């Protein structure tokens, strides 16, 4: 660890600025040869599996458009879960630093939800750790999304493919 703030994990309502976060990670890990990042965004349409609910059955007419996402979480457990995921990633790959930011509250369509940025000497560790952290966050971190559109709102359902993505990492060990 090169710098006290090389590891930054945060749950916040405020937006984040990706460029600023990547610069901060780069400066905190000057020996890094690779930084990889993932940004999760609020779509402007209802999630496909739910498109027949909430009066959103015909995307062509704009009925499927999404206004916002409300994200709830379990304060206390969320931070512990994110830290545990980061520790697992750090135990598996030679990471130099990490920025993991997840937003909560009401987020408008196209707003950024989550940032995972990993820093390492060489690219493979940063690529793999970034994917691993997102796959685990999807199944282990207590966040819940509600989609809000012109004609209603509904809770997003968990997807079996997310659990499969996590299981693949266990088989790869």
């Amino acid at each position, binding site marked *: 660890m090169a710098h006290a703030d090389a590891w930054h994990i945060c749950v916040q309502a405020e937006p984040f600025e990706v460029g600023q976060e990547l610069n901060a990670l780069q400066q905190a890990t000057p020996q890094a040869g690779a930084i990889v990042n993932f940004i*999760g965004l609020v779509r402007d349409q209802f999630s496909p599996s739910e498109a027949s609910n909430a009066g959103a059955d015909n995307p062509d007419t704009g009925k499927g458009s999404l206004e916002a996402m409300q994200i709830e979480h379990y304060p206390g457990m969320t931070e512990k879960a994110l830290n545990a995921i980061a520790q697992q990633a750090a135990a598996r790959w030679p990471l130099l630093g990490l920025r993991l930011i997840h937003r909560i509250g009401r987020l408008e369509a196209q707003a950024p939800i989550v940032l995972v940025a990993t820093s390492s000497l060489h690219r493979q560790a940063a690529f793999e750790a970034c994917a691993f952290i997102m796959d685990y966050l999807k199944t282990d971190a207590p966040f*819940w999304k509600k989609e809000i559109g012109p004609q209603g709102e509904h809770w997003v359902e968990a997807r079996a493919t997310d659990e499969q993505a996590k299981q693949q990492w266990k088989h790869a060990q």
Partner: protein
Amino acid sequence: MNVTILYFARIKEVVNYSSEQVSLPDGVETIIALKSWLSGRGEVWKKLFDGSSVVRAAINHELVDELATLDEGDEVAFFPPVTGG
């Protein structure tokens, strides 16, 4: 035994509670026993825990299975499968 129970997301809306303190009768010492005891409150609670939808549980911020045991002062949480990211 006294525990705090928290409810999140869809489950919070269904039961209309976000948290409550409960005093459990003797014999209610596991998650599955707690679910069964809560199911006795009425139809809404019975349907919530009848297995038709997945309800995850945590004790003191750790995900647990149904056989996990409760201790005095624990914080128990019930919530649907998570959907962050």
